[in-house]
């Protein structure tokens, strides 16, 4: 399981995901519409890795906790409060780039 090529299949089957705050993990999970609890460890992590987790939490897309509060979070969580995560829009980037480069 250590370095599977893709967790897509496992994600598809999951009802709840508990993850570290890595951006890839968070975004992949949210895009599949799965409820996500992000476990942060402020002592170990790069400061910047927390930025995305905090923002997602602020926007109501994930639940956050740390290792010691995980059990309590699992007991008291209400997943219905989580807001759906709209997909990014690379088409906006394409439009922008076309203008920049001169392909209109």
């Amino acid at each position: 399981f250590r370095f599977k090529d893709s967790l897509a299949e496992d994600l598809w089957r999951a009802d709840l995901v508990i993850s570290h705050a890595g951006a890839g993990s968070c975004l992949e999970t949210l895009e599949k519409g799965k409820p996500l609890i992000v476990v942060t460890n402020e002592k170990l992590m790069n400061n910047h890795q927390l930025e995305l987790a905090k923002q997602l939490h602020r926007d109501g897309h994930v639940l956050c906790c740390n290792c010691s509060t995980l059990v309590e979070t699992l007991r008291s969580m209400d997943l219905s409060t989580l807001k759906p995560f709209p997909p990014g829009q690379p088409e906006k980037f394409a439009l922008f780039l076309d203008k920049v480069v001169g392909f209109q």
Partner: protein
Amino acid sequence: TGGHTTEILRLLSCLSESYSPRHYIFAESDKMSEAKIRSFEQKRSETFSDSQFTLHRIPRSREVRQSWTSSVVTTLYSILYSLPLTYKLKPDLILCNGPGTCVPVCISALLLGLLGIKRAIIVYVESICRVETLSLSGKILYHFSDYFIVQWPHLKEKYPKSVYLGRIV
């Protein structure tokens, strides 16, 4: 590397076939990006018959948390490597999103521009992970890129010359 590659492939996903040929440059030590890129291009060639791309590896400019002084040395080494590559490719457009690998390539492109050899448009898209602070590559290239794109409004406030299009990956 990893997350950067995934993001940049998403950025490319809606580009027309006018953006061709595509030259992918990534770090020697990167094991996974090649597979992701080939898979992306494979799918693309199902829609666009004449799809062209090439892959190039350059020495990694900096390991995570490498010290300042040694980073300067390894980056200079990477520039020595990327300069002839950039000269050979003579790109019209450089698209990058933050791994240390992009700095030597952009510096090479800037040098070629200054020397009147080839002027490339440099478009930098900061990673979606960057909500409040810029990456080191971002801090450097904010001043040297033609277009600097951020994906969160807070960064747009902090860096007024940047472009904000919302989340694009």
